[in-house]
């Protein structure tokens, strides 16, 4: 067939053209510039607190993006996503614990020495989260809908109680890290240095996920959310794609977990509680599902509201609750839906 004679480049639809992409890029770069300037502004103000706050928010944003991949794009309502964060954080904590005590971890007859080398501990921690996602996902993805929500919650609770009962590692009180991992010349215990590591991780995760959702894999994932029957009618069984997405999301949550361990110098069962998992869902829904940048907005909004309103009253969720209801009812696309369409250059 004479392929070359055909007009293969069709006119893009409004909103998908070069103009909005560039606007989206400008807005994205402006936000990035703002984040880059935070340490300098905080330095000028002589208040390192802001660096800590924004570091924490960015780590939660990574968690929320990871959840958006399965919840927003894949339509899998994972109600235990914090377990992947907590698992990685605990690997860092336990490795640090044995490094400072000097006693190796004895596991199945093997003597594993502790470590605070991020090049060793972080990949191990992230792989643990990914493996956990693989095993739990393989089982949970055999169910759907409400059952999927309950089974992910059950797995997370299981892990939560394992952490609570691990007396060696602090049990319910959690585990303080005497020394946090060092990443080559970078000391992740240093607030400023950790800030840059987290910012780089956030940007990398965002860009990676944007590639993924627009790839062939991402297309199948998005399609599986809308119409599974049609997918099987064109010869695609969605199970393996969903599982792969679950594992990728688990690994990204693991990235957030290792960063969280460093930023808190502490890990506790609270880091993988169902409350935390619920907060992550709120951030994604509040910010805008299946947008990737929405969860970042959601994380900032939620945690800044917590910090801000938390000063006024400890019952700050009295305000947050109705706000969430309003956003869900009226802003169908979450907070991201309030961003003018012309600015949006996000995933499509």
């Amino acid at each position, binding site marked *: *067939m004479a*392929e070359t004679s*055909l*007009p*293969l480049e*069709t*006119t*893009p*639809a409004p909103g*998908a053209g070069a103009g909005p992409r560039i606007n989206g890029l400008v807005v994205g770069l402006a936000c990035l510039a703002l984040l880059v300037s935070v340490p300098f502004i905080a330095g000028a103000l002589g208040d390192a607190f802001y660096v800590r706050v924004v570091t924490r928010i960015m780590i939660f944003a990574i968690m929320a993006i990871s959840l958006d991949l399965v919840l927003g794009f894949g339509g899998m309502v994972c109600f235990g996503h914090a377990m992947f964060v907590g698992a990685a954080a605990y690997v860092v904590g336990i490795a640090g614990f044995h490094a400072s005590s000097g006693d190796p971890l004895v596991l199945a007859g093997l003597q594993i020495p502790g470590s605070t080398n991020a090049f060793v501990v972080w990949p191990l921690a992230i792989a643990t989260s990914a493996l956990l996602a693989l095993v739990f996902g393989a089982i949970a993805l055999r169910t759907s809908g409400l059952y999927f929500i309950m089974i992910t919650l059950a797995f997370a609770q299981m892990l939560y109680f394992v952490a609570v009962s691990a007396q060696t590692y602090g049990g319910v009180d959690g585990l303080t890290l005497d020394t946090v991992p060092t990443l080559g010349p970078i000391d992740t215990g240093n607030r400023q240095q950790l800030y840059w590591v987290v910012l780089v991780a956030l940007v990398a995760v965002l860009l990676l996920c944007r*590639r*993924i959702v*627009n*790839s*062939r*894999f*991402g*297309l*199948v994932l*998005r*399609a599986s959310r*809308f*119409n599974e*029957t*049609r*997918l*099987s*009618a*064109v*010869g*695609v*069984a969605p199970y393996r*794609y969903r599982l*792969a997405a679950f594992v990728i999301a688990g690994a990204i949550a693991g990235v957030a977990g290792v960063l969280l361990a460093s930023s808190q110098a502490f890990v506790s069962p609270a880091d993988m509680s169902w409350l935390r998992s619920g907060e992550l869902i709120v951030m994604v829904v509040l910010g805008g599902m299946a947008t990737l940048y929405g969860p970042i907005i959601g994380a900032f909004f939620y945690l800044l509201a917590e910090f801000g309103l938390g000063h006024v009253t400890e019952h700050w969720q009295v305000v947050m609750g109705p706000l969430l209801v309003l956003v869900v009812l009226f802003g169908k696309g979450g907070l991201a839906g309030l961003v003018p369409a012309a600015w949006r250059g996000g995933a499509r």
Partner: protein
Amino acid sequence: MNRPLLQVQGLVKTFGGITATDDLHLEVREGELHALIGPNGAGKTTLIAQLSGMLAPTRGRILFDGEDVTGLGAVERVRRGIARSFQITSLWPALTVLENVIIALQARQGHAFRFWERAGDAAVLRHPAIQMLQRLALADKAHLPAQVLSHGEQRQLELAVTLATGARLLLLDEPMAGMSGEDSQRMVALLRELREHCTILLVEHDMDAVFALADRISVLVYGHCEATGTPDEIRANPDVRAAYLGEEV
């Protein structure tokens, strides 16, 4: 006479006490356009669901290209070369028209475990997808979400997605349902063209289209195949006239 591509032998499907498919025998020959007609509730859509592997029959066998495919699921049957379209349009409404077609195309090209390249930028997907859309006069809508298309356009996209699987046997469940006259005519022309490349089992209520297009027609009544023959034979069959055509032709 061409060899049979699809053979249905003694197919039975019961839902509780209701028999939707009742000892059905059917043979679709390679290269023919075989129409399936029958009154509402005759079990046409139930049959399509069983042929496409979405519904397991209670009894009986389905042979495709001489092989027993009765136990295979929908995904595996598409890989063998049987694809269906849906009577009630079944698309991915939030995805673009182009993406809808690309999903079917990439399934045909093997797995989709490719995480980096934008699916819409890959020439091996984009070019055939645009060509497919041109055939169905949808190319200028390629970048719109499927949900904003008109009903007729969605019906065409439904067919485009089914065609993009590259199947040898198409099971088309009322492709012209609810279409305007102009759209139906385009669809008839398209089906006539498709007949040259694939074997088609067509369920359709539009009798003009059926008698114009079909090589052979089977009449389904109460889940049972009442008669099979050329359009002329079916028109002349007194039983068929009594059971079905009497009121419509």
